């Protein structure tokens, strides 16, 4: 029974899914082609790695958001959570509790993951056990996390004080493995893990089942509360991973950290083909979505076509056109 319920929503759209799964990548390719026309430097190795590395935060968070949304939830607290975890991580790095530098940095990363998981757990339990709309719960925690950071920073910013720690940790964002920056490797890792969880495990099937029809899932013996709560914990972990590469970039966190990330992440998820209603999730589409958003911004800056006052309008228009094109491609099949 569980099997049947889990397969049902996935089996029917599978044939169409192959198109809708490719569509975001086609849109991305099209936008990149436009970028190359606008400025040949767009395709330079440095620019592409810059853009990929910059998209890490949103891409990583959006993978978690894909799981949450597929399971029928929503998490608006991710940007504020990122700011809060960044602040705590930097305070820990400044605390001087551990002398050994590599150990200090690794402990800070572990701390970030633990705090992220706890924040996610809190969101999850309040939504499921408390039976409150996720929109409201995470809107509440969004305010809580952001205020906590502002309080920790006393209204200013929190910066890594020790220059040696700063220099060593900096490599996590700016360093690379065989020319591939670490942040890009992180996107790949998180996407592979997310896709594995969502498509290849029983838990992933349960997430989709819960998202497409909560009652049917419950009658077939799935613990809806447990499945949903875990999606929020995974989201928290994704936010923590984003923080781990965000902190070394500018070595500081302030009230502006992560501002608006929740909407950008949700946009990436939707542009990637995931339904906001839940039940169907596209991890790789989400990655394409996050890249599309970052690439559009990059192209706007590199081209001289658009006035600095109109960038927002053109970005919005391109997103809508990309979505319409995707819809067109899916329908023509």
């Amino acid at each position: 029974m569980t099997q049947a319920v889990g397969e049902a929503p996935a089996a029917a759209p599978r044939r169409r899914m192959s198109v809708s799964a490719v569509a975001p990548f086609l849109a991305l390719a099209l936008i990149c082609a436009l970028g190359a026309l606008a400025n040949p430097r767009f395709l330079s190795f440095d620019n592409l790695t810059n853009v990929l590395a910059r998209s890490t935060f949103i891409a990583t968070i959006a993978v978690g958001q894909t799981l949450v949304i597929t399971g029928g939830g929503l998490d608006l607290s991710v940007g504020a959570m990122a700011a809060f975890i960044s602040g705590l991580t930097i305070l820990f790095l400044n605390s001087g509790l551990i002398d050994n530098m590599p150990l200090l940095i690794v402990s800070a990363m572990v701390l970030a993951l633990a705090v992220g998981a706890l924040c996610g757990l809190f969101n999850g339990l309040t939504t499921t056990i408390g039976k409150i709309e996720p929109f409201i719960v995470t809107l509440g925690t969004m305010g809580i996390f952001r205020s906590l950071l502002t309080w920790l920073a006393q209204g200013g910013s929190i910066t890594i004080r020790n220059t040696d720690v700063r220099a060593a940790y900096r490599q996590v964002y700016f360093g690379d493995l065989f020319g591939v920056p670490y942040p890009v490797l992180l996107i790949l890792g998180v996407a592979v893990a997310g896709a594995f969880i969502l498509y290849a495990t029983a838990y992933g099937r349960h997430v989709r089942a819960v998202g497409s029809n909560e009652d049917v899932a419950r009658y077939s013996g799935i613990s809806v509360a447990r499945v949903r709560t875990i999606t929020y914990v995974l989201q928290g972990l994704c936010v923590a991973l984003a923080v781990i590469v965000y902190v070394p970039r500018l070595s500081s966190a302030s009230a502006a950290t992560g501002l608006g990330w929740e909407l950008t992440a949700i946009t990436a998820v939707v542009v990637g083909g995931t339904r906001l209603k839940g039940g169907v999730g596209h991890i790789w589409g989400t990655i394409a979505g996050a890249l599309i958003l970052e690439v559009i911004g990059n192209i706007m800056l590199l081209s001289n076509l658009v006035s600095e006052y109109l960038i927002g309008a053109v970005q919005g228009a391109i997103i809508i056109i990309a979505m319409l094109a995707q819809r067109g491609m899916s329908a023509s099949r």
Partner: protein
Amino acid sequence: MKRILVSLAVFGLMVGAAQAQVSKTMAVSVPTADHGWTGGVVFHAMEEAKALEKKYPGLKVIVKTSPDPAAQADALEDLSTQGIDALVVLPHDPNVLTDPIRKVKNKGTFVTVVDRIADDRSIYDLYVGGDNPGLGASAAQFFKKALPNGGDIVVIRGLPIPIDKMRVDAFNDGIKGAKINVIDSQFGNWSRDDAFKVMQDFLTKHPKIDAVWCQDDDMAIGVFEAIAQAKRTDIKFVVAGAGAKDAVKRVMDGDPMMPVDVLYSPSMVAVAMDVTALGLEEGIPVRGDYILKATLITKDNAKDFYFKDSPF
């Protein structure tokens, strides 16, 4: 007779009590600490509130922060309903908040506007602000001196609000006549993350950049990180502004990449509160416009502007 005496006594007591409590209330409405500079504003407002309450025992100071213009409009209404004698307001967007501020003023409240001035100047009694055109002009002056043979520069602007325009217009006026070309200009929203992105893209787009004007010390952090990553050596210097302690420290230490900084201190909110309190408590006529100079901070005078304990 006795009754009259008693009621007179009671009346006297009441008057006495009322006189002892000529308490006055000053409300301070500022934006939430959404970037370093506003963080400094909140810090200085809180500190000054404590200091003023100590100095004037009858004075109550309420500091209220708001995340956006709409929330600030609501906050102004709420504060006004509580009954206040003076309002010190640093508006998110002065033109948007013109009417809400006018409403407070029409109730007879003394209004002090800080930093961001509206087109309509009838809405305040007192204005305390930094010299925004001066900030642009000071920076332009330095560019002319530092690049005597001209050069290609990029500009990273703040948010699209009036003070940003005042700064940029004055800067463009200031460099007129010199062979300095602004080869690109974009908004960085006074955010270090956005400034990092914008600078990365500027570096990709332009093979040669002589100098950067980025208006704000917070944004300079993102700019420096982007330059370091690109390992570019063509950029001779970056001029920012505000007088954040880390930036002043760099100037003081003689960093060639940050030779100067332009003062635009968030402590102006404290000046505004102080002057307002003078008018309120001591009856000194303080109405008028107070413009704090956009001093050029150089290696020689940097120590006068370095506040180690400030969060900003």
